[in-house]
């Protein structure tokens, strides 16, 4: 092993315990001196570099990590909490909406129903006899004592999931729609409702509500008062 190679190895790895290296050093005192100088310097350097470690560094490191983990968990818990809160809110809201039918305003519904149904009922041009109308009314426990004018249309319809009777009859000047709705608890009506085009007036007879809808307010009032007198309900 030549001098250069020997030095290269020592520089790279002063603690090397290669057999060949040891033998080379033993044969040459200068090489041995060089090696031992390097090792001595290294030992001194190692001692010199031993700066003191801050007190409790290890504890600080563990504490920092614990706090980090805790924060992460808290964040996750907070996420779960807000998720749960959102779900509760949605469930609460849908429950409230579910309950909504009990607050349904029959007057408003009636107007909407007429608009929605359009010409189908209003342009019907049949002529129901008193008996035919009474046969329909019987299902609702009602009865017309006498003829109240031409009835163009009289059919069952669904009124917010409640089976009701939809009648179109002749007023003085125009056609008027009458809804006969069984009185479901929680439904409400307004005595008088107008949207500027249609007018709805309601009437409560025993256990049934009547809503009269028409363009002509006078006709609506006329029919309403006629019904009040002539339509009789048993229950």
């Amino acid at each position, binding site marked *: 092993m030549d001098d250069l190679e020997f030095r290269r190895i020592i520089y790279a790895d002063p603690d090397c315990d290669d057999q060949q290296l040891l033998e080379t050093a033993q044969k040459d005192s200068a090489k041995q001196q060089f090696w031992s100088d390097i090792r001595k310097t290294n030992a001194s350097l190692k001692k010199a570099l031993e700066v003191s470690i801050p007190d409790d560094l290890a504890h600080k*490191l*563990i504490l920092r990590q614990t706090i*980090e983990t805790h924060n992460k968990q808290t964040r996750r818990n907070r996420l779960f909490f807000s998720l749960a809160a959102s779900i509760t809110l949605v469930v609460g809201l849908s429950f409230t909406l579910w309950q909504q039918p009990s607050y349904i305003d029959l007057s408003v519904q009636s107007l909407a129903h007429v608009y929605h149904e359009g010409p189908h009922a209003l342009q019907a041009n049949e002529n129901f006899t008193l008996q035919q109308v009474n046969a329909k009314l019987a299902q609702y426990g009602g009865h017309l004592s006498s003829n109240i004018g031409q009835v163009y249309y009289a059919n069952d319809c669904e009124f917010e999931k409640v089976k009701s009777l939809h009648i179109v009859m002749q007023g003085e000047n125009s056609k008027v729609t009458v809804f006969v709705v069984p009185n479901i608890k929680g439904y409400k009506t307004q005595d008088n409702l107008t949207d500027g085009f249609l007018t709805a007036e309601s009437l409560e007879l025993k256990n049934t509500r009547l809503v009269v809808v028409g363009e002509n307010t006078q006709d609506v009032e006329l029919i309403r008062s006629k019904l009040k007198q002539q339509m009789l309900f048993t229950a």
Partner: protein
Amino acid sequence: MNMRNKFKQATVSSDMLNKQKRYETLVYALHGDIYRYAYWLVKNKAVAEDIVQETFLRAWKSLDSLKDEKAAKSWLITILRRENARRFERKQFNLVDLDDVAIADDHLANEVEIEHRELRNIMSGLNEEYREPLMLQVMFGYSGEEIAEQLNLNKNTVMTRLFRARNQIKETLAKSNDNRGRKNG
């Protein structure tokens, strides 16, 4: 289903416990070495402590990627060097060089202490590219090859740097011995 969930939860928490144990072992075994390395890398106690904190925090986050405990030290050094580099990306600190400040030293100023102080001064005066390979050799007993791997350098480059570092130390020591001799004489 419930049983399975419970089992899963138990496994998860025992995994967490294992991870925690591993981490604590790592901290106790290596925080000294890592701190010293950081200190000699940045030559400032406060900054060194900060970097060590960041290093171990990052180590915790990716502890699962450490497969071989024997490689832990070099793994941590790699993280530490990256954290140090990141510090420079963020902001260039004004560091006080060690040789500008007197190192607090309560020990008796005997011959050995004087020598150590001198060596510390020389070490901190070394260029970082010379200082780091020498630190790895002196402090951790890394071989040339291991240093090359750790610092991601060619082995010949490492050899050259080690050689120059050692030469600089020798020269500086000789110079100061001359000075001392002159002063004393």
